[in-house]
């Protein structure tokens, strides 16, 4: 569960990136967050990852108040959240298997668990054959699937996807979206920040539209409001 209460975030220069945003996302929901660049979507993701602190307001994730969280607790908190980026952010000097195993090494999972779970994730995203390939040998869609496998391997309760299809062609975009939907059906809360009008309109999910740091609409089975 994600709850934002009157959250604002200002940087030292310019208008606030978020301005009094209140929001409630239930466990197991699938939510699109749309809006022009500069609308505050990325700031929202960063606040949820506790990369940034809000200037005002409170953020509650899985019943934990982020504002009061101590530095030492941040790693444990982040382990409940999977994250996928537009630019994939894979480790270029490691192969597919190692990239996914990395996420488990980092949180000190036993080697036995790693050897069991990584192949499982790979077959889930359809890359079982390519476990030895390096990121540069993969297409954009394949790289994003590796990133998704890495985000999911630790079984997070929330998945944040920041423009996951931004660098992909329509076919690959749809494949990623279908994977996200599958993940959601298994119970993970999924938050997708996107510009992809076609997908948003077709998937009939909850759509939160942001503009200049405020939520301008929040609809169940919503559509893409803005012109790009």
């Amino acid at each position: 569960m994600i709850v934002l209460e009157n959250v604002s975030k200002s940087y030292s220069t310019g208008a606030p990136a978020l301005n009094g945003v209140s929001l409630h996302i239930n466990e197991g929901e699938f939510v699109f967050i749309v809006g022009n660049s500069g609308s505050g979507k990325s700031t929202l993701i960063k606040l949820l990852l506790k990369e940034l602190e809000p200037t005002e307001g409170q953020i509650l994730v899985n019943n934990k108040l982020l504002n009061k969280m101590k530095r030492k607790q941040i790693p444990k908190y982040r382990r409940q959240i999977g994250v996928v980026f537009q630019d994939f952010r894979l480790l270029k000097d490691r192969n597919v298997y190692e990239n996914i195993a990395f996420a488990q090494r980092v949180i000190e999972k036993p080697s036995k668990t790693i050897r069991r779970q990584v192949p499982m994730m790979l077959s889930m995203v359809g890359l079982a054959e390519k476990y030895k390939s390096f990121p540069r040998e993969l297409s954009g869609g394949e790289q994003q699937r590796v990133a998704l496998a890495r985000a999911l391997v630790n079984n997070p309760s929330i998945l944040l996807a920041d423009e996951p299809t931004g660098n992909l062609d329509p076919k690959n975009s749809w494949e990623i979206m279908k994977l996200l939907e599958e993940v959601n059906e298994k119970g993970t809360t999924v938050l997708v920040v996107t510009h992809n009008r076609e997908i948003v309109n077709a998937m009939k999910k909850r759509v939160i539209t942001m503009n200049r740091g405020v939520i301008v609409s929040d609809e169940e089975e919503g559509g893409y409001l803005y012109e790009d």
Partner: protein
Amino acid sequence: MRISTITYTLRQGLKNIRRNKMFSLASIATMAACIFIFGLFFSVILNFHGIVKSAEAGVGVTVFFDEGLSEEQIKEIGSTIEKRAEVSRLVYVSAEEAWQNFKEEYFKDAGDLAEGFAEDNPLANSANYEVYLNDVSMQQSLVTYLQSIEGIRQVNKSEVAANTLSGFNMLIGYISAAIIAILLAVSVFLISNTVTIGIAVRKEEIKIMKLIGATDFFVKAPFIVEGVLIGLVGSALPLVALYYLYNNVIGFIVDRFDMLTGFVTFIPVNQIFAILIPLSLALGVGIGFIGSFSTIRKHLKV
């Protein structure tokens, strides 16, 4: 902590070193040079210290007594002097012995010339204590103390010898401390640079690790391992070199300058290395740790 985490951290540390080979090699080389020079100075100082100590042991104070002091009183004075901490040993020279020594030194072959004094010891009042010190620099305070004792007529000392020896000892100590301090600073600086570059190269990876939920320790440990390994290798290499060098140089000196061996004894290599090995390794590891730890604190805001 899991064993797999430990091996992972060690592997990553090694990988860091391999990834920026040139800087790692430069750091190891500087560290090796530092430890080499440190070891060199250490061996020289230790040997020199040994020589000075044995020279110091020969520097003493001579104490003469008031006329007509009885044996008992002299013994009593001796036992009070012996109680002083700075006194290493006390030798009593009776008037007869003093005369005997004098005769041997001055009349040598013409022993019969001294016969004239046979029944009348010219050094009748020269019974004395030779007082030897643990630490030559304490000589002045001892002399002041001795002069205050009742029954002591005169105290002879060799101030020049004492001052020269303790001064020389200190000078060597200061110079070596200064050189070692400079070298250590250079080592810390180079290791810090190596780690800084390692952090810069892995910025993306560190960011990903943090987002996935790695603890601070997990992110930092490989860099510490990198610094410590550089320190360890950098201090182990020169120790091997020093070991062979020391034996050869001592052998060479003893061979070529055999007249030295009479009054100079070198400390055996094993005795020196019993201290030098743990000291150098600790120094190397310590510098590696400090260099990498301080850099991480500065450049790695996790």
